[in-house]
């Protein structure tokens, strides 16, 4: 039982660190491709 709980806490920690950081990296950035300079509105 203790062994199972230890593993479960370990898995949760891995999700809370690697998983969270990975998802944050994807969500924190706007990955839309910027339009080329020529198509932008002229000043």
């Amino acid at each position, binding site marked *: 039982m203790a062994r199972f709980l*230890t*593993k479960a*806490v*370990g*898995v*949760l*920690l*891995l*999700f*809370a*660190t*690697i*998983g*969270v*950081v*990975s*998802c*944050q*990296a*994807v969500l*924190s*950035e706007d*990955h*839309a*491709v*910027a339009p080329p300079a020529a198509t932008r509105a002229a000043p």
Partner: protein
Amino acid sequence: VSSAVVARRRPIWIGGWLPFILPLPLTLDALANLWQGDLVGMLGSALPCILLFGGAALIRRGLAQASARPGQAAWPWRTLGAALVALGTAAAAFSAVGHSPPIALCFGLGALLGCYLCYGFDRRPRLSADKDVAAALAEAYRKLDELEAAGRRIRSPEFRERLGRIVAWGERILERIAADPEDFRRARKFLNVYLDGARQVTEKYARTHGEAGSAELEESFRALLADMEAVSEEQHQRLLDNDLVDLDVQIEVLTTRLRKEGVL
């Protein structure tokens, strides 16, 4: 069947995959940055990815090694892997997400703790508290490895199976000695003479059976393997019964036979 044998037969897919799966979104982030032409952003995600996947690979290697036979030269793969995973997580938190260094460090330490709780760090198991017994056991495990390696070079499935059983009995005997060093005295002859003989005869057969291919040689090797198996099984039983005398006589007979075969 001994725990070591069971452990080595454990399917490879059981464990160690989580550190490979969790950084997948980060890989997507690196690809998205590449798509955008953002080199700095791409490197900021790709380098932590490399660290994370490298660490995951080392952890799996460590897990596979942990289920191997004791006494083999061991690298602390799991510990190194956990360190790489922690470094990769901290790097991703800092460079791909933009957290401050202390927060990134906390993520790294959390990942390290997670790896420790999930997979543990490598510890070199002591074979025995007695130095002489530990040295003899390490030597015996090495001989078993060589016997197993020689067995893999033999094509006959029957002989490989027999050798597998002999090795399994050998492992059980060594486990028994590790558990009770008093058994070392009872099994000394087995370790010093028999294991060496078994290894040499198998290596010799593995070297020559392809060339000669004589039925007589095959028959003789088959009989020898049967004897070896019986002696190993009996040695194990004698250790359980703490009986010394009869088996030594039997090993003497087998030794004489090995000498006759030109092995010893």
